């Protein structure tokens, strides 16, 4: 068994973990660090439920090995506190079962930071990375646009 003891900077805290080379970042943050906000939906990079931030960009944490995370700034849903996008998701009923929600919020939050002037096609380009099975997406669209507007005016 090839084990690595590595340092991960997650939600502004330094964490030391011992991982197998083949452990995904998703597995590591859930099982070792108890950060279960990122969800396993496909383990194959297809659904986006495990989306987190790596250096501020959205990342599917099932498409990344924990050993690749060394030296990166990692943020999970647990690291977001009362952000405009979270408020907007609540107000606009942009979730039902809630399972895809952390991934959508992390993706949307990064969009707000990186592309504050995002137009419809940019929003689509980013958000089509995630699957929501409950809503019609129009609720999510409303929430994202509301948060973008709020972001601009603040």
């Amino acid at each position, binding site marked *: 068994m090839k084990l690595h003891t590595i340092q991960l900077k997650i939600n502004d805290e330094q964490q030391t973990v011992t991982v*197998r080379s083949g452990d995904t970042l998703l597995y590591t943050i*859930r099982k070792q660090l*108890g*950060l*279960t*906000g*990122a*969800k*396993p*939906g*496909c*383990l*194959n*990079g*297809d*659904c986006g*439920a495990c989306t987190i931030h790596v250096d501020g960009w959205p990342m599917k944490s099932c498409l990344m090995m924990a050993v690749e995370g060394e030296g990166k700034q990692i943020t*999970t*849903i*647990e690291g*977001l*506190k009362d952000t405009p996008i*979270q408020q907007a*998701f*609540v*107000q*606009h*009923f942009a*979730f*039902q*079962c*809630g*399972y*895809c*929600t*952390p991934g959508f*919020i992390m993706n949307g939050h990064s969009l707000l930071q990186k592309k504050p002037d995002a137009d419809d096609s940019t*929003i*689509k380009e980013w*958000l*089509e990375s*995630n*699957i*929501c*099975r*409950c*809503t*019609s*997406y*129009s*609720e*999510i*669209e409303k929430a994202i646009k509301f948060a973008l507007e709020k972001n601009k005016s603040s």
Partner: protein
Amino acid sequence: MEVIGKSVIRKEAQDKVTGQAQYTHDYHTSKKLSGRVVLSPYGHARILSIDTTDARKVPGVRAIITGEQLPLTGESMRDRPPLATDKVRYHGEAVAIVVADTPNQGDLAASLIQIQYEVLPVVHTPTQAFQQNSPLVHEHLGEYEREKDVYPVPGTNIAHHVKIRKGNMEKGWGESSVTVEGDYSFSPSDHAAMETRSSTAEITPDGTIKIITSSQAPFMVKQLIASYFDEDIGKIVVDTPLVGGAYGGKASVQLEILAYLSSRAVGGRAVEIFNEREQDMMMSPSHIGLDAKIKIGADHSGVIKAMEIQFLWDGGAYSDKAIDLTRAGAVDCTGPYKVDHVWCDSYCMYTNHTYAAPFRGFSHSELSFAVERTLDLLAKKLNMDPLELRERNAIQPGHTTPTRVLLNQSNVGNLQECISKLRTLIRWEEGPVREINERLVRVKGVSCSWKTSTIDSNAPSGVILTFNRDGSINLMSGVVEIGTGTKTVLAQILAEKLKMDVDKIHVRMTVDTQTTPEHWKTVASRGIYMAGRALLEAADDVIAQLKEIASIVLRAPIEDLEVAHMKVFTRDDPRISVDFKDICYGYQYPNGNSIGGQIIGRGNFILRHLSHLDPETGEGNPGPEWTVAAYGVEVEFDRRDLTYRLIKAASVIDIGIVLNEKAALGQVMGAMSMGLSFAGRETFYYDEFGRVLNPQLRTYRPIRYGENPEYLVDFVYTPDLQAAYGARGVGEHGLLGMPSALGNALSLAANVSLHHLPLTPELIWKTKAGNV
């Protein structure tokens, strides 16, 4: 009303946007073992041998379980071994379980189990299964234990047959001057809930069986495990936390059995069975497929006189819930129309596909595709407006259903009003076809639906209310929060009833079958209907108890008291009052004397007057009420490429009353989205061995952000007099008409009659070329 109808924010909203919401797989127990399942690599094959020698040598392996000695399972008929023995009947069927310390060790061991198979001829479709010379999926069909209203035909692949015989067909055809017919088919597909199924089981030294599971039916898990394995039902405790999407797929009981068997094999230690996506799609039950034949006769004015219907449901390898799906399809087989002469044969067919679970709509989106496409064929033949045809035949109070239930003002909604509102919503006056340029054309298709919920005739629901010391209330119901917001709506109903702040009502989000009162299953859009009635009874119980003690404290007769704002007060002078907090745990006089005691409210509900169907005619009362709806879908179709975009989708549903506006809209639009996704893209593809070729979300593709149309929703408000505040079921109905409305739009756009799903550009191309 103060609270009903408002878009009250979900009680669990903050948890869901902060990552704090816990689902089954999020629970940690330090010593949880992992159960990894070995799946069948073939659709149909004899198992010649299973050799676990090498697998057992892998470090960390604690047990390997195979199927011998296990009882047969299945909800209506016991035809399914929990682990395949003798032969495998579908690709992905569970054959063995490795219980190991870690998933990796389990996977390694699983790969070392040597299984020899002899491939058998595969039954690919229900139509093939129905043929005389078809290979048999079950050779001993006659020997299975079953409920008394299940009618298998031994020596065939027919697991169940429901007959509807209403009126006189000869007369019906005689009165018909026009007839149309069509054959329709589509393969099984998937629920694709974002949370895959998972279950953990543990058996403590005192014999308590603890199961945590992602399920719509925790109470059924308890009943079935007790029954299958002869366990003491009181010692089975099932916990269900938040569920990450279900859509019917988590109403079947499967992983719980595997987890229980796994724990039993390792001396009761906790074992988790977690479905990875591929396993969830292949091994766990799927969305049913269908081959249908529809024939409709009508007179010159478009009045439908007769319908003859054959449904061959693709129940897959085991009958489980497909038996109920077959019955549900039969009872509403005509769609929401008055038809005096009906002949329907609905067959539950065995094939070598994954067996079927309920799917949102419970056979109705499926049957609607066949019926509503045929109605458009009829409209075309009569040269009649398709909405007018539907309106002319719309079901109404005074008519009877295929199973001869007499409809009244309460048990059916107002379809004509739905159609009328739909006309406005989709601008039907513009006509169904609008040319954009020489390639592009915008086309609208319409459809209608109805649905009753064919649940068990003795299905119960119960609610318990307790108080906190501040007078706030705890609401406990066995409804599982699968994303529908039902528990929040229950809180709204209680707040309305007690005229109090909804924030002072605390809802138990999770279900634990030991302490939560039973709600049969969280299915069939029956959460509010049943739990709502139980809740109103519990609220009445609480009010009575509050008034009883308040009447002593306030020295006023019970009849003079009112309850509101967490107080009991006299009607004429509200200043004479006592707070809930001062009486809900007994009232204490200044000298210390106390009266009364803890107030606990209880309420229950059971559906009444439902009956089994007559085996020869289908006569009987299958469900409490029929929600009706009308739909439209507008596409922009490219006549050169035969591709299309979804532009608008509309639903008008007779909802009775809106309890939570945004939640209701969310349910309807979400269901529409799922229906369009199913209709436009979702299906399993199989190879010649019956192997699923697309068991991943990159090849099985639910609709994504931006592929969706604009959604238009309107409601009609015909109260159901039996339901809390008149509310009708609405969780499924947005889905039901989407495949048919899309099929009707595209058939018109492409000038070709489409009879299959999914409605891909390639299907349109093939149909035009006559190659389907």
